[in-house]
């Protein structure tokens, strides 16, 4: 899953090394409106629905955090 997320990230924001970073939001790597396109990509790819409640910086600061959130959403289904 992490690999797929990395792929999506590099499509949304090419030319950035996302691996191992835990400050994607706090350091402004993913800017304001990138997140919303990222969310719809993740929704489509993993067939989940990230709701506004999941839309918090903590869930997007690292690839691991995103994977954790997606796994949780998949389990809830």
């Amino acid at each position, binding site marked *: 899953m992490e690999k797929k997320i990395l792929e999506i990230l590099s499509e949304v924001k090419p030319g950035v090394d996302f691996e191992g970073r835990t400050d994607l939001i706090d350091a402004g790597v993913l800017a304001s409106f990138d997140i919303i*396109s990222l969310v719809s990509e993740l929704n489509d790819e993993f067939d989940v629905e990230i709701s*506004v409640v999941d*839309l918090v910086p903590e869930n997007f600061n690292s690839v691991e955090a995103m994977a954790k959130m997606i796994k949780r959403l998949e389990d809830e289904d």
Partner: protein
Amino acid sequence: MKNVLEFIENSAKNFPDKVAFSDESNSITYIELLKMSKTIGTALVKKNNIKNKPIAVFLDKTVFALTAFFGTVYSGNFYTVIDSMMPADRISTIFESLHPVAIITDNEHLKIAESIENCGEIILLEDALRQQIDDKKLAEIRSNSIDTDPLYSLFTSGSTGVPKGTVVSHKNVIAYSEWVSETFDITSETIFGSQTPFYFSMSVLDVFSTIRNGATFHIIPKKYFSFPIKLLEYVRDREVNTIYWVPSALSIVANWKALDYVELPKLKKVLFAGEVMPTKQLNMWIKKRPDLFYANLYGPTETTDICTYYVVDRKFKDDETLPIGKHCNNCDVMILTEDNRLAEVGEEGELCARGSFLAMGYYNNPEKTKEVFVQNPLNTAYPEIIYKTGDLVKLNEKGEIIYISRKDYQIKHMGYRIELGEIEAAAGSIEKIKTCVCIYNESEDKIVFIYEGSKMTDSELMNKLSEKLPVYMRPNVIKRIKQIPYNQNGKIDRKLLKQTYKDI
């Protein structure tokens, strides 16, 4: 009153220990704002004994940026706000015409500042803040200032791609902030939650009506505009009661239904400008919060920020457009036809403005200035300048001004004159569409319709559109994209969309 610094000096006297400005990590009171601005002003005077010259401020949107603006003004010069995310190349282009005598930056941005050509002397904010205030010198500078001296210059992208720097004077902002304060009842009780960047003219409303009235201004961190719940929690926790945001930011809150999750008991006023407010999203706000005051403001940087406004006082259907209303107090507008007469009710014309909100012109650009700041064609008796906005509008039966489109958005398709904005307004009311943009492919005479929203077949969409639009206004190409792009100001990035999808 001749100088906006009197706003700060008065508020520092009346509300010394009240918070004037805050960002995520810092806040400053009025007395601190006054002292820091004077300190920076003194540092600038020591380095450059000059008057009415541009000084660039190259800092993030923080309370320190504000002290740098007012410090510049204390030194008798005017400031230009440079987006700290802007590529060095574009900054160099701006500086080719601006030639700033100095650039104020901090250690964090020093490296980039050093790589910019024509940037003038680099002044580190950290160093400038260590100066001793020289009150005598600052008073002397003030005694020689007049209200038509420049206060700031903001750069907007020109249609040719070369940015133009609009020069705005003290007088402009004093007149403008007076209208803002009386119209929206801005007082020392007002608490703003600021969205717009300082290099964008909309920020002039909240910044200057704050210092004028001893209000409080909280900078909302940009990153929260992608996290609607966090955004509203921030607004709630800072007890914000007035917001003046671009419609795209308000739409994100509406589309994600964030108001269902976070209550904003203190919020009273919602003002918006900068682009057309989609009625569907406004109705979502009104449905959730019918108790709030909503107003649609309209105007370009060249009229300081705004020249007309409409307070939402009745219901609109999702496919109706909001009026931009009537002229502001102390700023007149008129609708001129191509043959320079006043347009009749219902007749299209170009919106032109006159009065004290009108900027001085474009910095170092007499050609562009002459094109749009012209003699009032209806007045042949004495010199009187009006500003031609380049926006097409008309009056409705109620006497309200209705925005139609930019003069250059109006297209001719299949022999008809079409406003792309009209197609967007009609399509935007369709339930499955979150946001949509229309562009025109001139070479093939095709209307390209781009939308973000739930999946539907093109024929489903066309069926819905055919209920709302005549045949010649229906799009020729439909494209669904995952995310409508936004520019640095938070507005829909039409330029990028046009580049990307013009030829599909």
